[in-house]
């Protein structure tokens, strides 16, 4: 059993453990763990001096950004290091003058293998070549969730010092814990069993997985596609038509399920299943910045429903409504809390079921950050041309569909683990996905 050798800065919350268990699962596949990325493509080189100063200020305000993730017994803590690693680094085109310099650098960073104790919770990278500049935030998932990254980015881009002080104030405890405190112990137990029944029901239908699981995972790759304004407008109108204003994500999930089904209708399994996280933060709140404050939900569609688009969307909408009506979203929280006291291996086996079994509840991972409100944002004197995000994935499913909307254009980032998937297959999948999204 390892002993802590440095000062504890912060303990992990139950939702952080959920992502840490996935980090562990990914690491057991000899992959880098739960690394995520958020990238801004810029029109020119930003003001590096000011950017660097702002990043240093961020580290001073949030010292956990320099921390090392260490284990004490079964628990994990962000601990102070003897020597802080710089948060910011620059990558300039030198030897690699290929058109792929930016993508290759992003891939190197997102596939970088480091021990859990050594890796920086977050790091900031400026990738520069003659005509292109990419700013990448890379983080390990237990450190924060996607909303947290959005807040960090806003912190960096807030020029007024007094406004920057508003981030993380009031200082809030983990929102997962705050939610759990609302329930009496017997209510927590009732919720726990409700969630167990929910998961058991989901697991009655084996998920359809397209990854070639006979192959050993080697690296994460990604394909980004930015749609035109016209395509985006048409898709937004289809969203309203098919799932209404309460189900934007469900439209993407449903279309992606149909696209996968069309790639190979004979694929083994009985249903498509996709997890989607919901945030416990209030929208527009500047606190809490760090840690994970999300619960998990699942969308599951039996194979038989995939051929009828309207039945499929109706099913997804009803399912989502039932989940919220029955409070199954919050039911998952006590399960995460209970599992956070187990070893990571047991946590995975209890909560993810599929852990190290070669199967998986999720047919793919999904994240939609929706319309970002950084469209008007100037990034240290540079205009932001486009954005995209990335995440390492367990294998299976070895596939993630990530979407966002920026400047009235949708960007899809298809993340996949090679060689379980390959780029040509993903290109075909995107063609079909686009047909599905644009279908009236």
């Amino acid at each position, binding site marked *: 059993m390892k002993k802590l050798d440095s000062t504890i800065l912060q303990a992990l919350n139950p939702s952080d453990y959920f992502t840490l268990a996935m980090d562990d699962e990914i690491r057991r596949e000899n992959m880098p763990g739960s690394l995520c990325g958020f990238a801004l493509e810029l029109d020119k080189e930003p003001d590096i001096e000011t950017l660097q100063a702002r990043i240093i200020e961020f580290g001073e305000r949030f010292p956990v950004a320099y921390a090392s993730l260490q284990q004490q017994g079964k628990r994990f803590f962000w601990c102070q290091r003897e020597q802080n690693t710089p948060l910011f680094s620059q990558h300039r085109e030198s030897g690699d003058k290929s058109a792929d310099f930016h993508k290759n650098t992003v891939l190197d960073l997102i596939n970088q293998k480091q021990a859990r104790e050594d890796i920086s919770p977050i790091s900031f990278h400026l990738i520069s070549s003659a005509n292109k500049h990419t700013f990448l935030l890379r983080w390990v998932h237990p450190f924060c969730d996607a909303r947290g990254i959005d807040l960090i980015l806003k912190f960096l881009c807030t020029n007024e010092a007094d406004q920057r002080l508003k981030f993380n104030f009031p200082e809030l405890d983990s929102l997962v814990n705050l939610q759990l405190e609302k329930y009496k112990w017997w209510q927590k137990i009732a919720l726990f069993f409700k969630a167990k029944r929910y998961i058991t029901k989901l697991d009655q239908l084996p998920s359809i997985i397209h990854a070639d699981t006979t192959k050993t995972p080697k690296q994460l790759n990604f394909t980004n596609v930015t749609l035109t304004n016209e395509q985006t407008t048409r898709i937004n109108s289809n969203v309203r038509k098919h799932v*209404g*204003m*309460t*189900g*934007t*994500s469900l439209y993407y999930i449903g279309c992606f399920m149909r696209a996968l089904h069309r790639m190979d209708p004979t694929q083994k399994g009985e249903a498509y299943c996709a997890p989607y996280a*919901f*945030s416990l933060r*209030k*929208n*527009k*709140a*500047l606190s809490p910045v760090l840690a994970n404050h999300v619960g998990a939900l699942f969308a599951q569609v039996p194979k038989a429903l995939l051929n009828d688009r309207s039945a499929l969307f109706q099913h997804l*909408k009803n399912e*989502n*409504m039932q989940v*919220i*009506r029955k409070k199954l979203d919050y039911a998952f929280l006590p399960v995460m809390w209970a599992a956070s006291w187990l070893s990571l291996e047991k946590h995975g086996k209890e909560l993810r079921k599929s852990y190290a079994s070669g199967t998986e509840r999720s047919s793919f991972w999904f994240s939609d950050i*929706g319309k970002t409100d950084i469209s008007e944002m100037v990034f240290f004197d540079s205009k932001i041309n486009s954005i995209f995000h990335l995440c390492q994935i367990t294998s299976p499913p070895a596939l993630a569909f990530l979407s966002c909307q920026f400047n009235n254009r949708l960007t899809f980032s298809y993340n996949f683990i090679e060689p379980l998937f390959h780029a040509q297959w993903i290109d075909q999948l995107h063609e079909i996905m686009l047909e599905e999204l644009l279908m009236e």
Partner: protein
Amino acid sequence: MHTIPLLSQTQKVLMKQKIRDFIFDELIFVAEPEKFSDDDDLLEAGLDSMGIMRLIMFIEEQFGVTLPDSEIDPDNVNTFNALEAWVLQHKS
């Protein structure tokens, strides 16, 4: 023809206050909620699709109404006044 029992002014004020509390406690952050008027735009303030879903479930549970799916529209949820009018239409 069926009659719709009218809510008293006090009941309406209480209903609106409960909806305000739920939105500001659970769904969106507004620095000074007391300054957020009944005609200010909730969607611009950050009420998103998941939030609307939760809000509808809350209203249905709290006030015993069923809000038809087909009427979930920005015009019915974008302000407190719009929400109130929509709920009252179905409060029978």
